[in-house]
């Protein structure tokens, strides 16, 4: 098993040479030269607005059961498919069972009633606001991209990696992120002998040439990883689906010391307007994938989790009241999960507003913790980046105290 270490050295002028394209935030300062000693950030986005009330269940709230006669998760101990108790007030969806030990050993922290200060219930607006790092604003760069840039990390190929078929907006910035569907498929068709002629065909400027240039630069390393294959450590088993495979790829890149500082991985299918199911069904299946994958990563990394922070977020939670089609419509407050050796886990953070009518936001769980409060503390304490005013412009951090450092 490889030791997890990252040896980034700021090459003189490399950060400046990376170029500040127009549209990015002006006047960014760079961190002093030296080795990057922060955590690898793994940012998981649950696309579609995950039903966090059924993921982290407020099982002592009568209003939860009154509003969800069909799809509510039973209180702990009382039935099959019951919630798994966390702290006497909240419980985990039963399909998230693989996460329970990590909560209990204090690696996993949860923040409930978290979200965006913007009231939009549009998926696309809210995802953008969160990824660009400022509700109500759409920038050309994202919070992860600005973090990498202000840390003064070199514009190396693997500094920022977006898994999947589209690079996440949060990664956009002056350090071009690498978009990878899978390590296994990352190879030059027709063989490496064609690489020189392809480089000639794709010489030039423009987005095609830039993407090609990244591709050529990544090929050698990716081939090494592909040919080496990957055997997870400590008996970890990643689910045999796209999300599981992508997370295993992230794990391999971390262990192989390719220079990864931040990776983004998406899991879709959370927009459960219709027939969401309760302890079993569409939502439950998705929860199982999420939990099994995070469990696999943490198991696989072992003590290496001390240098990794995983943060899981979604654009909004869903309505308290179930719909007539036994699903839920778009809501507001959701939950965030933070997983890492440097996280003060075993606790549900944030200020629970309750589910009384007067406490709801137009029928939805209110937002009492700004998502930037969670991300900002991670950026500051775990990633070692004090430039919060540049990563999250217009925001002042008052940390919850969920991270060490």
């Amino acid at each position: 098993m490889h030791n997890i270490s990252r040896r980034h050295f700021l090459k003189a002028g490399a950060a400046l040479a990376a170029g500040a394209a127009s549209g990015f935030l002006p006047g960014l300062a760079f961190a002093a030269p030296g080795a990057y000693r922060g955590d690898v950030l793994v940012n998981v986005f649950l696309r579609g607005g995950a039903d966090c009330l059924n993921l982290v269940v407020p099982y002592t709230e009568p209003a939860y059961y009154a509003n969800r006669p069909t799809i509510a998760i039973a209180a702990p101990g009382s039935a099959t498919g019951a919630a798994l108790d966390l702290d006497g007030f909240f419980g985990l969806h039963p399909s998230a069972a693989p996460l329970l030990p990590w909560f209990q050993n204090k690696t996993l922290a949860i923040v409930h009633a978290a979200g965006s200060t913007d009231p939009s219930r549009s998926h696309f607006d809210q995802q953008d606001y969160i990824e660009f790092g400022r509700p109500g604003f759409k920038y050309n760069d994202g919070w992860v991209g600005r973090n990498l840039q202000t840390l003064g990390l070199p514009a190396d190929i693997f500094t920022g990696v977006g898994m999947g078929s589209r690079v996440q907006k949060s990664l956009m910035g002056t350090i071009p992120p690498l978009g990878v569907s899978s390590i296994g498929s990352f190879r030059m068709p027709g063989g490496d002998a064609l690489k020189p002629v392809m480089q000639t065909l794709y010489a030039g400027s423009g987005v095609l040439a830039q993407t090609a240039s990244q591709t050529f630069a990544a090929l050698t390393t990716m081939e090494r990883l592909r040919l080496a294959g990957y055997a997870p450590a400590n008996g970890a088993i990643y689910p045999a689906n796209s999300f599981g495979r992508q997370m295993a790829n992230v794990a391999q890149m971390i262990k192989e010391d390719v220079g990864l500082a931040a990776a983004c991985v998406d899991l879709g299918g959370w927009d459960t307007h219709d027939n969401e199911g309760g302890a079993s069904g569409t939502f439950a299946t998705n929860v199982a994938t999420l939990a099994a994958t995070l469990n696999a990563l943490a198991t696989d990394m072992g003590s290496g989790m001390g240098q990794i922070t995983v943060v899981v977020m979604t654009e909004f939670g869903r309505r308290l009241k179930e719909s007539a089609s036994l699903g839920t419509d778009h809501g507001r407050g959701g939950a965030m999960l933070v997983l890492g050796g440097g996280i003060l886990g075993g606790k549900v953070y944030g200020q629970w507003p309750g589910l009384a009518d007067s406490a709801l936001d137009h029928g939805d769980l209110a937002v009492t913790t700004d998502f930037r409060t969670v991300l900002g503390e991670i950026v500051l304490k775990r990633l070692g980046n004090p430039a919060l005013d540049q990563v999250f412009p217009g925001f002042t951090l008052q940390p919850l105290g969920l991270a060490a450092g």
Partner: protein
Amino acid sequence: MRLLQRLGAGQDDAKKIGKKRTCPPKLGHHPRRHKKPKHPLAPPPPPPAPYVPPAPQPAVLPPLASPGDAKILAMLAATRLSYGLRPGELERIGHMGFEAWVAEQLAPAQIDDSAADARLAEIRATQQSNAQLLDSKTIQADKRDLAHELVNAAVVRAVFSKRQLAEVTTEFWNDHFNIDIGKSLCLPLKFQDDQRNRAHALGRFRDLLGNSAHSPAMLYYLDNRSNQAKGPNENYAREIMELHTLGVNGGYSEQDVKEVARVFTGWTVDAATGEFKFDAARHDNGSKTVLGHSIGPAGAAEGEQVLDILASHPSTASFIARKLCRRLVSDSPSDALVADVSAVFGASQGNIAAVVQAIVMSADFAASLGKKLRRPFDLAVAGIRALDATVEISDLLARAIDGQCSAMGQLLFRCQPPTGYPDTASAWLTASNLLARWAFVQALAGGRIDGVKVNLASLVGAATTPETIVAALNQALLDGSLPGTSRQAIAASLAGNQAPTLPLAAASLAQRLPATVGLVLACPDFQVK
């Protein structure tokens, strides 16, 4: 479409909107003065009539002229307004002239498409009703895969239809009114939905919107079929405003979303026929206010009224105009162009043929060659057309095309979020996706795409030296637009150890030609249009 007069309270029977009325009692024109007492043995009222989509009306457009260069316009016609060059196509367009070609293409019903239709007839799903397609037992017994039939139909139309601009525009509407065939019963219902988008692709936006609102596939996809008075479902109400008409900043509120949801309660699908049904028992019979307009109570007519309001809203004109400009001109169309096109939308009451005409006759369009990235499906069919490949319709073909597009980043007909596929280059270009594009064109040229047979020798003609062979390929596939450095690099690759001016032995040529064609198709010049 005439707005029906508001009906009196309690009159919430389904109303058929359209040219024919078969449903007594007649309402709207003849307000009831006194109710007849119901005879105890009167027959039950007939079931509400099914939804009949409006008949497409061909546009009569005044001729417009383009300010552009004829050769460039012909290339734009063939690559942007069609699914790619085919042998002889540039000559045909050049001969008729761009304006005449556009006029021809804006009246698709008058273009004889019997060749493509004959091929489509091989795909059973294109000839079947919703009810037949919902009969999954029979479909399974016949060992049919409807997703494959859907992909094959799309390939056949893109490759063989002569109504190319109508097909390009139909694809736009399929994206705009996105449906994910992976959800619920959307797959069997998508065939009718696609056909109705096609029938009105260059017709009136209000008709497209109305068809979509009544579309059983859409009713499943955005859950409106479950939307009912005792438990409204807001999904469709939100997305019809955010994504289909006004746009997210178009001026609607959360309250409007709730009210529109109430308006569309009862718009559902008949389980037996798989067709639209208005279920009066599920309809919210209260009054609503939408975007400042008082609505109802008027049963199904409320929904028609809201569709009228949305279709004619000024935000809709600019939202649709911008999307069409982004599809047909460039990733960031100029505000000036969008404003002009939006004005045409408004003035023509959403006549899409007029809107498309305004776009393609603009100076921005004439200057836009090469500015749009081919999306994976575009690349696949452009490759097939450019190589004049023969296509054999089968499960193997569908699986091959589907798998290749998926590797390139596009799951055909399975875009999960209702925004539909993105339309900017940066959304499609990742390192992995680029490698997959190169892999696809190599497999295509190498005859390794199931169901697609290529004859590369016909592209090369009598040329025998690497230089002349590459020149011939450049002419056939890219109308001669490949830069010198690229031509030299490909010729050198083909020549191997020899000089590129020396003829190749026939055996060497046969062995190396597929990789060479693959290189030409892999060029950035073929990745864009």
